[in-house]
């Protein structure tokens, strides 16, 4: 547990450190807002409404394939840790797992889901 105290303290410190100059900057720094300055930067043209740009599904698919590999990691890292003591059967079981997921990659590739258009 004590090892996580360190991490908690480090993260809190890391959060507070940059927060101080930002707060100081907003409080002490120059503050002369005007309409032009505070407008959104769009190369001089005024923004209309929200930024409602429609996004392509492509972004979703990349995140999706990533998610699948992320889950793979949950199962494979314990396997990798135990790897040195596993019999051949155990190693093959892990390899089968990887290959099943590689099929997912092959499918996405073949379907053209990995092309950036």
């Amino acid at each position, binding site marked *: 547990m004590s090892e996580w105290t360190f991490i908690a303290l480090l993260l809190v410190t890391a959060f507070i450190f940059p927060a101080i100059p930002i707060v100081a900057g907003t409080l002490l720094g120059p503050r002369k807002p005007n309409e032009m300055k505070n407008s959104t930067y769009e190369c001089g043209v005024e923004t209309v409404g929200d930024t409602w740009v429609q996004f392509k*599904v492509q972004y*979703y698919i990349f995140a*999706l394939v990533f*998610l*699948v590999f*992320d*889950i793979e990691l*949950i*199962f494979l890292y314990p396997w990798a840790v135990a790897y040195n003591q596993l019999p051949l059967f155990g190693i093959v079981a892990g390899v089968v797992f990887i290959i099943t997921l590689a099929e997912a990659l092959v499918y996405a590739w073949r379907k053209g889901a990995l092309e950036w258009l």
Partner: protein
Amino acid sequence: MVTLEFYLIVAAILFSIGVYGVLARRNAVAILMSVELMLNAVNLNLVAFWRFLAPTELNGFVFAVFVFAVAAAEAAVGLALIISIYRNRQTVLAEQINMLKW
């Protein structure tokens, strides 16, 4: 020392929040987020039981790991469905998705 009941109470509260979200929100994405909360409440329960009742056995731990995998699969398919419905019907409000066929 934090005893088992505190973890279970947190999980119970989170679960009911999730139930409320599922029942009360209109947006399908928000409903999915609430489902995600419920799943996590259950998972917290599992891990707490594992830690307090059978820390030397792997069963509870493994169960939690598999819940992760299922939750991820659920989120992926659920969000894909929402995107698909949005493209076909231009809506993500749950009460407007009431036709079985279109």
